[in-house]
């Protein structure tokens, strides 16, 4: 390293790069990561991101608990995960180094803010000696940078105090990394102007100067002898933007409302990691979106049920603990057979669990979480951009079958981002919704008279002649009157089950990637799509006989799923829980599926799945 002093530095072409910013939760690491992700998307790379932050807004400075990280991978080919191992790590303090170093690959680039490695910082991070001096980092290419000092120098003419000056350090770090990976500064300069330009011109100027200082530092210092370039990816033609899962979900809901000619009503109570959906939707009132920040989770869903009863598109969003509180009301929506979307952005559980970490442990809650025989269709999003499509499909099912529908997302895809190929609004087909018209002098209205799909009519208050009463008590079929008749109850329980089961006739057949039969099938659902798809492709490239089946529909299953499962000798179900889908597949199809299970609040690495596949193929 550092053998040349030439100003013109070497440029090394890479196919992909994985970078992580790590620092205190107040250090602006999420902002830095997001800026780099947006910039990389804009230059045409495929990207995948993984923000990882503590539940505390501001944990004590410099502590291990307060470390916030943002991992980003950008590539010149299609990628599905933010990368297993980090190739370049920016550590803003000793605590960030201590918690993130295990993920840095041997020989990886390690940029640290040397100024924070003082006695206090080292002690807080649990270092007995300074790792920058004791030789413990020999396996990495270490670049100690006096970031605090250099940032203060860069912004000293902006008239900020020391504290404010230090808050520009993330821009210095960004500048340096932007140089290192040959990223343009313009998008970030535009961002600085729009975020701070009018509100705090001095801060805007300081951030600009810090960004440029970091960039020039990389360019001029002798420490770095080369920098890297990642060419644009060959994505399918179209217009793209970078999108996060919660954002895609919110936009998907608005789109579904438009496609069905409905006004969207969201009942929601703030909860991590779902709140951003509420924030996003509350900004779009010009689409007729009504957002109701309810007094609690139960009010959030019951208000949405009230809105659906009145003919709006009722939606409630939450995470595991909130969904637990909504279960009784979900039963009411099943009993009253009203369309409703229930969105669960899953997080680590049980109870309060790990609010900012990801997990897939609410599948059973979705499938079985209510009293009585209470079937609800369940769909799961596979990636940030997929959230856009899944919620529209869920609403299509909800109105077509007059049923609540659960959509499962998770913290990983909610906060992660990827390029999204923007659809043309006029090409989106309408979602058909029917409401019975007025009944003039006719016989009594039959609110539970079903159509060929077993759906009851969505009769709206205000319609003359259709006055009727619905509720949680068992209803007589056809008339909708309260009924305690044993035969009717059996009939209604079976009818509700048959209605939901019948949705299988109305959804696409399950697709399989890879050989149509063979030694091993990997079955996945939800946010583990990227790791599983990548692992399967890697093994296939090495000649392994493995196929991948990723489920969007978890209730009902696609009607050909059982047949698919029967064609493989072994079935592997990787899940971020202790085997919930695996259990269901075994029970439902009597197949010897086995699980690969992880509950650490983190997504699977590709390596974890690859090695399990190899192990099973060679068993």
């Amino acid at each position, binding site marked *: 390293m550092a053998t040349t002093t030439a100003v013109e530095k070497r440029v090394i072409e890479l196919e992909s790069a994985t970078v992580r910013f790590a620092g205190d939760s107040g250090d602006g690491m999420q902002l830095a990561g997001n800026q780099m992700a*947006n910039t990389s*998307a*804009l*230059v*045409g790379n495929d990207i995948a991101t993984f923000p990882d932050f503590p539940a505390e807004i501001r944990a004590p400075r410099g502590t291990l608990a307060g470390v916030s990280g943002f991992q980003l991978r950008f590539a010149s080919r299609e990628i599905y995960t933010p990368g297993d191992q980090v190739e370049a790590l920016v550590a803003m303090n000793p605590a960030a180094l201590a918690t993130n170093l295990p993920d840095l690959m041997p020989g990886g680039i390690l940029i640290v803010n040397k100024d924070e490695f003082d006695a206090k910082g080292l002690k807080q991070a649990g270092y007995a000696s300074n790792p920058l001096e004791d030789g413990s980092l020999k396996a990495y290419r270490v670049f100690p940078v006096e970031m605090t000092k250099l940032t203060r120098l860069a912004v000293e003419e902006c008239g900020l105090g020391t504290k404010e000056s230090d808050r520009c350090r993330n821009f210095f770090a960004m500048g340096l990394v932007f140089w290192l990976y040959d990223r343009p500064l313009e*998008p970030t300069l535009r961002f600085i102007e729009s975020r701070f330009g009018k509100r705090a011109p001095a801060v805007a100027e300081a951030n600009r100067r810090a960004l440029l200082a970091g960039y020039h530092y990389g360019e001029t210092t002798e420490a770095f002898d080369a920098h890297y370039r990642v060419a*644009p990816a060959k*994505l399918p*033609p179209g*217009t*793209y*933007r970078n999108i996060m899962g919660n954002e895609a979900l919110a*936009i998907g809901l*608005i*789109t579904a409302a*438009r496609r069905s000619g409905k006004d969207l*009503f969201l*009942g929601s109570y703030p909860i991590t990691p779902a709140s951003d959906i509420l924030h996003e939707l509350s900004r*779009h*009132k*010009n*689409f*007729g*979106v*009504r957002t*109701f920040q*309810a*007094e609690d989770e*139960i*009010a*959030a869903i*019951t*208000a949405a*049920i*009230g*809105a*659906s*009863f*009145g003919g*709006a598109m009722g939606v409630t969003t939450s995470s595991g603990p909130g969904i637990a509180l909504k279960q009784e*009301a979900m*039963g*009411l929506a099943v009993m009253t057979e009203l369309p409703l979307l229930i969105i669960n952005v899953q997080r680590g559980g049980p109870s309060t669990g790990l609010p900012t970490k990801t997990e897939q442990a609410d599948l059973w809650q979705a499938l079985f979480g209510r009293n009585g025989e209470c079937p609800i269709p369940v769909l799961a999003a596979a990636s940030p951009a997929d959230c856009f499509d899944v919620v529209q499909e869920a609403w299509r099912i909800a109105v077509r079958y007059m049923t609540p529908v659960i959509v499962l997302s998770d913290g990983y895809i909610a906060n992660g981002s990827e390029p999204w190929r*923007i*659809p*043309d*609004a006029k090409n989106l087909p309408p979602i058909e919704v029917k409401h019975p018209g007025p009944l003039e002098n006719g016989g*009594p209205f039959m609110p539970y008279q079903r159509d060929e799909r077993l759906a009851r009519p969505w009769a709206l*208050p*205000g319609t*003359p002649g*259709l*006055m*009727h*009463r*619905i*509720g*949680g*008590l068992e209803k007589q079929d056809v008339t909708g009157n*309260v009924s305690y008749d044993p035969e009717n109850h059996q009939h209604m329980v079976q009818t509700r089950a048959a209605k939901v089961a019948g949705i299988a006739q109305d959804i696409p057949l399950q697709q399989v990637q890879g050989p149509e039969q063979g030694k091993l099938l990997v079955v996945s659902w939800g946010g583990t799509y990227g790791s599983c798809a990548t692992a399967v492709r890697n093994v296939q490239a090495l000649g392994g006989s493995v196929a991948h089946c990723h489920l969007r529909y978890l209730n009902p299953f696609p009607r050909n799923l059982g047949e698919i499962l029967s064609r493989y000798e072994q079935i592997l179900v990787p899940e971020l829980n202790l085997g919930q889908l695996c259990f269901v597949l075994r029970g439902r199809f009597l197949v010897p599926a086995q699980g690969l299970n992880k509950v650490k609040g983190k997504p699977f690495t590709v390596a974890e799945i690859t090695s399990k596949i190899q192990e099973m193929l060679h068993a």
Partner: protein
Amino acid sequence: MPDSQGSITASPRPRGTVPDVPASDATIIGGASAPPAAAPTTAPARLPVLTPNDYASDQDVRWCPGCGDYSILAQMKKVLATLGIPREKLVFVSGIGCSSRFPYYLNTYGFHSIHGRAPAIATGLKVTRPDLMVWVITGDGDGLSIGGNHLMHCIRRNLDINIVLFNNRIYGLTKGQYSPTSPLGKITKSTPMGVIDNPLHPLCLAIGCEATFVARSIDTNIKHLTMVLQRAAEHRGTSFVEVYQNCNVFNDGAFDYATNRETKSDATLELEHGKPLVFGKNRNKGIRLNGMTPEVVELGKGITEDDLLFHDEKAPEPTLAYLLSRMTYPEFPEPIGVFRAVDRPKYDESMNAQIAEARSKGEGDLDKLFHAGDTWVVS
């Protein structure tokens, strides 16, 4: 009455904003702070004349014989027939409990929901359908115990709905456990040695939440109950009405003091806006303020009506209404009538005003939404 037998011209009075009907043409009895009656700008619709019976559904009423709920249902039907609102524009939402069966017995739209949640269901319904008149029917257990949170927030938001809370001071449907309004010491199935939790006064709670309309009536006081329900119907914003309701099976006589011919004149006090607080069989007693404390005084012997507390339902501060809501028998007569009727922004109107404002700046455009922020093209 069959539709053909006659019809009158009446202006429908749905609450809230409806595209085709002018709002705020309600006549307010007692002249609270409602907007002045406006002349309809379009030809009034011809509505059939409906009688109370037209509001009955085809379902058999299944309350216990002698239950106070029958009377409330009867008075409600009477009031509905006077409102000039088509049946299909009425929605009754309830929770769980004896009172919550109410919607099944009305030929309107109805939603018998889950325990305590009716105000929340009504919220989602009313903000998306401001053209509907929404009533919430609840009880002391449903509204104050399991659903206390929703009741409180609905009232403080001033959603434009009417809430009628049937207070029988007992859990009837689950057969006789004490409720949040059961008095201390009350022996019930779940309190064999007597209730030890301090009871809640529903009106104190409502006034604490700054309810814009607060009233109380009694199931058997038919004329008064009709008047109170009428006033509630005409108020814009959350109307909260407590009805003393006798559960003749599990808590018979709980309100005997307020209904018995011998005692009711001394045990209750009928509030009238702008009038002194006078009560008693001979109307010879009154309520006087001694500092911040009310006291019962006898008229005569140098005390005249001018010395008494005068009722002001429009007082902007809820203090007086709260003081009245704290008066309990036997120390005091218990006031009935309208405690408070003031005007404040309604949640549904405010929410829809924001929607209208946002739309006036440009209706949402999906393509614009999709393309927000930085985009790039792959060819």
